[in-house]
């Protein structure tokens, strides 16, 4: 292998090699524990830093989309704003309501942060860079996601406040409703890959025919699945346009109304970390994980591709937040049960047809029609009963 290729390969595996070098100083019996501690520390440091960066990105991005500057005081382009926010949330007084359930009120932010960080254990962030290669990796991810719903309930219930309880019930109803299309959209990938292991799914997508990769998003059912997954992921992490449970203009702050200071920051952290984890799973299932988009770009280190895709998806989340208005609760639920669930089931059927038809342009045509036509028909059918017109506003003169 040429020197340059060897250098790029070592650069690709640099974190794995560094981890092995650090662990060689430990006795053999302690090495699995040391490896686990090292991976956990790395994940927490990297994604907490990414969280700080994304809060800055979001405020600047939303600001520019709304024709205003974002934060621009605390350093060039406001880059130290996350540090200022962190100091602020750490130094605020921790107010707990008198009638609140103190034990549960304390445990809710802890549980939600722990549950949101657990999902990263099965995401392959680079070649050979997954923390745990579980046989049932995708199932682990969804199981951990369901822990977050319990934490949301704990937060809303223990605060003993109307807004908290209402926000918690809405949030749980939304998260449960959107968990169904989320899981169904990912089952399509599992059907095609034949395995629940995230490493196996990424390895299946890291091959190229010509210059094109075998990413699942580049197939009709994969594209529909990806769109459904991203919509459900936006709803799962309570992001705009699905942020009615925590909308500031609706119910103060929903289930974390009665939290102040650092606990509020923990909820904020958990929401963003959950968003990154679900984006990471979307990248693993649909966008080929750490594989390069074209076969002539495989020399770039694999973790750079993973984080580039992650930042692109986060930018898309921020873009959607700045563009679309908030959905009402009944519109939200109708979208989940009446549109996304049938589309996800039809997508399953399409993937089955794809798998059973012989390769060639005919299956592309058939599967594309099977995905696009029901989408249009379902949309038209659901819009039919409501008389939707362009709204005209009459402002008082």
């Amino acid at each position, binding site marked *: 292998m040429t020197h340059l290729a060897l250098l790029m390969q070592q650069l690709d595996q640099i974190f794995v090699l560094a981890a092995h070098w650090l662990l060689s100083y430990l006795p053999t019996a302690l090495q699995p524990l040391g490896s686990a501690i090292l991976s956990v520390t790395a994940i927490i440091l990297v994604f907490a830093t990414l969280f700080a960066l994304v809060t800055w990105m979001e405020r600047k991005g939303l600001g520019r989309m709304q024709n205003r500057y974002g934060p621009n005081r605390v350093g060039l382009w406001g880059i130290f704003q996350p540090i200022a926010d962190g100091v602020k949330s750490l130094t605020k007084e921790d107010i707990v309501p008198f009638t609140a359930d103190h034990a549960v009120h304390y445990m809710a932010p802890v549980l939600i942060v722990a549950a949101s960080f657990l999902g990263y254990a099965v995401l392959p962030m680079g070649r050979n860079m997954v923390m745990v290669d579980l046989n*049932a990796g995708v*199932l682990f991810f969804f*199981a951990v*996601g369901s822990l977050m719903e*319990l934490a949301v309930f704990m937060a809303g219930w223990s605060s003993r406040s109307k807004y908290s*309880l209402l926000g918690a019930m809405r949030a749980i109803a939304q998260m*449960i409703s959107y968990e169904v299309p989320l899981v169904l959209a990912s089952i399509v990938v599992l059907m095609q890959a034949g*395995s629940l292991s995230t490493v196996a799914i990424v390895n299946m997508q890291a091959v190229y025919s010509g210059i094109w990769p075998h990413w699942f998003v580049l197939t009709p059912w994969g594209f529909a699945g990806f769109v459904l997954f991203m919509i459900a992921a936006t709803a799962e992490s309570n992001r705009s346009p699905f942020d009615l449970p925590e909308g500031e203009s609706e119910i103060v702050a929903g289930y974390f109304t009665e939290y102040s200071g650092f606990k509020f920051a923990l909820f904020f952290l958990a929401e963003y970390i959950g968003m990154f984890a679900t984006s990471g799973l979307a990248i693993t299932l649909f966008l080929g994980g750490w594989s390069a988009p074209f076969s002539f770009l495989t020399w770039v280190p694999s973790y750079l591709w993973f984080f580039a895709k992650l930042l692109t998806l986060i930018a898309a989340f921020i873009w959607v937040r700045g563009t679309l208005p908030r959905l009402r609760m009944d519109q939200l639920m109708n979208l989940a049960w009446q549109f996304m669930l049938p589309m996800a089931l039809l997508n399953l059927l399409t993937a089955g047809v794809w798998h059973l038809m012989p390769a060639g342009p005919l299956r592309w045509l058939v599967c594309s029609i099977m995905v696009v036509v029901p989408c249009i028909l379902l949309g038209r059918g659901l819009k039919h009963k409501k008389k939707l017109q362009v709204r005209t506003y009459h402002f008082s003169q």
Partner: protein
Amino acid sequence: MTASFIFLAVLTVAGTAAAMGLRNAVHCVLALTLGLTGIAMLYLQLDAQFVGFTQIMVYVGAVAILAVFVIMMTRNDKTMAPPALSYSGVTGGLIAAAVFAVLAWAICSSASRVQGQPAQPDVTVQQIGDALLHRYVLPLEIMGLLLTAALIGAVVIAMDREEEMK
């Protein structure tokens, strides 16, 4: 009897005992969730990954939330009832001892204790899927029918009130 087994066993027993002993109903459900998570981790310790994660997803993610929703919807304000009479405590203790004796006798006289530990089968999700669709396809279809009936029933119950209001 490894250390992790003892820890998980203590966690499970403590969680489920607290679920019976605590006064506040929501605390009971949360303690039960802890006990169920302990059972899920016991499954994981036995290398049954699919069952363990499905236990978490179904019990913690769905059943516990259902329980807390029910408690939230149906609670009355006077939830702090004084503890029951000690008379029913004695009867309860006798019944619990009897059940424990029967279970202990059944486990002690079962085949696995006589033969020692059998070789651990390496069950993958693929084998579970194969079994579900070949050997156990009838129970699978019956479960699907049951779940569909429950879903339709829930929708009918929720829809009925709207018709009456019209």
